């Protein structure tokens, strides 16, 4: 596998192996090293503190770890398995077929990204209550064991379906972009050779899109693994839930951080696998790929296509938003309005999210470019390490950030203001936690640009910096804007870091929604929840304008 990718990567002169360059001070390297080191401090702090003394660790490993891992793997596998058809089939339909409503659906299918999983959980977790009479009947007619099996299957299945329906857009976006870049010739050959549309999908398009699907699937997997709110509501004890149980219940933060370190190690392995698979993708998608022409579907098949697109959209967005709107309406009509809580600061909260997005996206482009410029192990490792914040629960990253800011603050350095509990510290935490999003998209974007363009620039004598500014950055604009929007939407929804690290009296829409939900005031909580979703829908609309393959080909 690696041979296929290295064969496609001539390493001269872009990688500057010639002696004249070797001893020049490497500004790219310095910038990435210093910035990356600072940004990785919270994760390093987590790893360092995980080495401390832990009274609960041994019994944790002996009694519980196996169960936590089995539950986590089971849930991740089930969610990814469900999210695959929910994301990939609509992606295939909107990129290769034409049917009424296609353009609208093509956009709307990304909307579940605006829905935080903890909000979806408020809506979904009480659904099994409706099944209680049926469950009680199972218990009286078939006994306790059948009842317990049915109850667990219902709860676990509903949680998995809900997570899949909220997270499938990562796969949808990856698949849609892969399908729209695939060669018309490959797919048409398959069809000419008698494969039919389904055959073309399963035998040509799907295998060719595999690296993109692996990347999208990795995001889904990470989101499931690091989720705490939803699994907590549904009473499913994943590793993430185990971290909080150990920390809050046993008061053993060290053992909790060790569980987080385990999650990071797993993630490193997954990222390495993803890199291997993505490496091969270069080989498969030609640079002169022409997207296949969209086939107009006859009425019967068009109805079916609309249905296939509507299913994920309905579960992951229309139903929960409909419920929230209904509750919000009940609340507002009963109370005659919605009183925003005293500390709500939507404007600075959005500003904070925007500033973090800008900084993180630009820096991610630099890190990705530096790693590409010279593929040294430290640079690639830096890229890997910086992405790990996404693999663990936000509260653990918060512990790392607290360790760093607390250490500096307690030094009482003259002239240095207090860092902990400030908005800049929160922005730093956001960046450390979510850096994977802009980094991975920037890396993928750079791979798409293709080295020949940059190599031409370098051969003509432009130094790496100028090549980056004049060639790579403008070509990267699309992926970077996409990354910025995805990151921004995630920051609007962000909860654990904000809860733990915010300045006193600072409430965001997400913390307001969460606070009301923890009082189980679902109707009141629907109002700020809808506002969080609305704040995410607008940038997602812009994202669609930027990403949609149909924009260029309609």
């Amino acid at each position, binding site marked *: 596998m690696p041979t296929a990718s290295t064969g496609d990567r001539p390493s001269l002169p872009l990688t500057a192996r010639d002696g004249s360059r070797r001893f020049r001070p490497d500004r790219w390297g310095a910038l990435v090293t210093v910035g990356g080191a600072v940004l990785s401090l919270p994760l390093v702090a987590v790893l360092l503190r995980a080495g401390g003394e832990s009274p609960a660790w041994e019994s944790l490993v002996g009694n519980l770890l196996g169960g936590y891992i089995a539950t986590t793997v089971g849930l991740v596998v089930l969610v990814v398995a469900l999210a695959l058809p929910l994301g990939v089939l609509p992606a295939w339909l909107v990129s290769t077929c034409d049917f009424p409503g296609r353009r609208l659906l093509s956009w709307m299918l990304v909307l579940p990204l605006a829905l935080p999983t903890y909000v979806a959980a408020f809506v979904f977790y009480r659904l099994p209550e409706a099944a209680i009479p049926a469950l009680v009947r199972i218990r009286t007619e078939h006994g306790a064991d059948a009842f317990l099996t049915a109850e667990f299957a219902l709860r676990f299945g509903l949680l998995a379906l809900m997570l899949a329906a909220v997270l499938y857009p990562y796969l949808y976006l990856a698949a849609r972009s892969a399908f729209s870049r695939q060669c018309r010739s490959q797919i048409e050959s398959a069809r000419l050779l008698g494969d039919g549309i389904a055959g073309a999908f399963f035998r040509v398009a799907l295998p060719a899109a595999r690296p993109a699907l692996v990347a999208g699937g990795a995001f889904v997997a990470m989101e499931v693994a690091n989720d705490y709110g939803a699994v907590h509501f549904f009473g499913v004890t994943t590793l993430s839930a185990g971290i909080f149980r150990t920390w809050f219940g046993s008061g053993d933060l060290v053992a909790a951080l060790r569980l987080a370190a385990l999650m990071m190690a797993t993630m490193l392995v997954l990222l390495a696998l993803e890199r291997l698979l993505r490496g091969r993708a270069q080989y498969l998608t030609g640079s002169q790929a022409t997207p296949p022409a969209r086939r107009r579907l006859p009425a019967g098949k068009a109805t079916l296509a609309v249905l296939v697109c509507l299913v994920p959209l309905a579960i992951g967005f229309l139903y929960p938003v409909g419920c929230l709107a209904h509750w919000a309406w009940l*609340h507002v009509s009963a109370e005659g309005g919605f009183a925003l809580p005293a500390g709500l600061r939507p404007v600075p909260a959005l500003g904070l999210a925007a500033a973090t997005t800008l900084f993180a996206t630009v820096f991610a482009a630099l890190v990705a470019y530096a790693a590409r410029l010279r593929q040294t192990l430290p640079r690639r490792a830096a890229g890997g390490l910086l992405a790990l914040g996404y693999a663990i629960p936000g509260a653990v990253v918060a512990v790392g950030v607290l360790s760093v800011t607390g250490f500096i603050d307690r030094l009482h350095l003259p002239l240095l203001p207090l860092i902990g509990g400030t908005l800049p510290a929160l922005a730093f935490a956001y960046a450390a936690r979510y850096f994977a999003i802009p980094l991975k998209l920037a890396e993928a974007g750079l791979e798409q640009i293709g080295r020949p363009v940059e190599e031409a620039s370098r051969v003509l004598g432009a130094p790496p910096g100028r090549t980056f500014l004049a060639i790579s950055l403008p070509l990267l604009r699309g992926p970077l804007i996409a990354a910025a929007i995805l990151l921004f939407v995630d920051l609007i929804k962000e909860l654990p870091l904000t809860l733990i690290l915010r300045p006193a009296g600072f409430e965001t829409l997400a913390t307001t929604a969460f606070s009301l939900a923890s009082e*189980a005031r679902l*109707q009141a909580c629907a109002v700020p929840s809808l506002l969080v979703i609305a704040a995410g829908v607008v940038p997602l609309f812009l994202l669609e304008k930027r990403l949609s393959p149909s924009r260029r080909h309609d």
Partner: protein
Amino acid sequence: MKSRLLLRPFLAALSVISLTGAISAAELTLYTQRHYEFDEKLHQLFTERTGIKVVVVKAAAEELMTRLQSEGDRTPADLFLTADGAGLARAKQAGLLQPLPDPAIAAKVEPHLKDEAHHWVGLTMRARVIYYSPDRVKAGELSTYEALAEPQWRARVVARSSSNAYNQSLLASLIAANGPEKAQAWATAVRANMARPPQGSDRDQIRAVASGLADVALANTYYLGLLATSEDAKDREAAAKVKVFYPNQDGRGTHINISGAGIVKASKKAEQASQFLAFLLSDEVQGMIAENTFEYPVTKTAKRSELQQSWGEFKADALPFSTLGEKNAEAVRLFDASGWE
């Protein structure tokens, strides 16, 4: 209003870059685990009366403790509030709290609801009771927490996850009363008697009894008040279908817990913080809490709400919270060993 909205980020930025980091003297910073909207109203009332502004950081108790520890002597926090007495005991043990400057403000608080060295004081009390369906259970069948382990309750009990602090503190009280072996056997037997695996909140346990899924539930008292006054009609119906039973009345008493507060060691506003606690402990505010969050007052002089009175009087287990705090980690270990998720 609009100009204030614009001003706030500017002021926030100013406070960030100000060299002293000092906040105006007329402001108290609370790190609180309490999630009640009613608390905000109390803060406003306090500000109206004293001119002291109250700003809060709300998160889980352990998260806030981790933050307090990291911030050390530079923390902006003046008060630390939890919804679990053991958490306060742990905060005291970690050296995060200072004694009340004027212990007299807590004089009316019952002795087992405050720290003997006045590092913290209870503000509200809640009892962990047995809810039952009067259709399927006679009150005479219920007696103690211990009795829920008997086989007659097979597939009839519901309780939430053992990750929950209220359950941990209940098991800690059983460890204190009966020893660790019996406590573990109890947890194992109650888990075996459950009608479904532990899940959801205390409210969901009450709903499960109301819906017929289970016959008895372990949950805190105030949730019944919250359900009975909920904006959701289904919750009000559920509240009407269950009754409260106070266990262990012939012995040590019903397990109770508190929500309480201590003054943060590094706070330089102990006087104002103490003023805030005195305000919360006044008969007037204790009565308001009883009417709104349905938590019990911690002082004998304050009046319970009518709804609380309808649940009857009870004898509370007077086990010190420091003991509950010490046994909390052991309780989690026993839960793990018992299979109570």
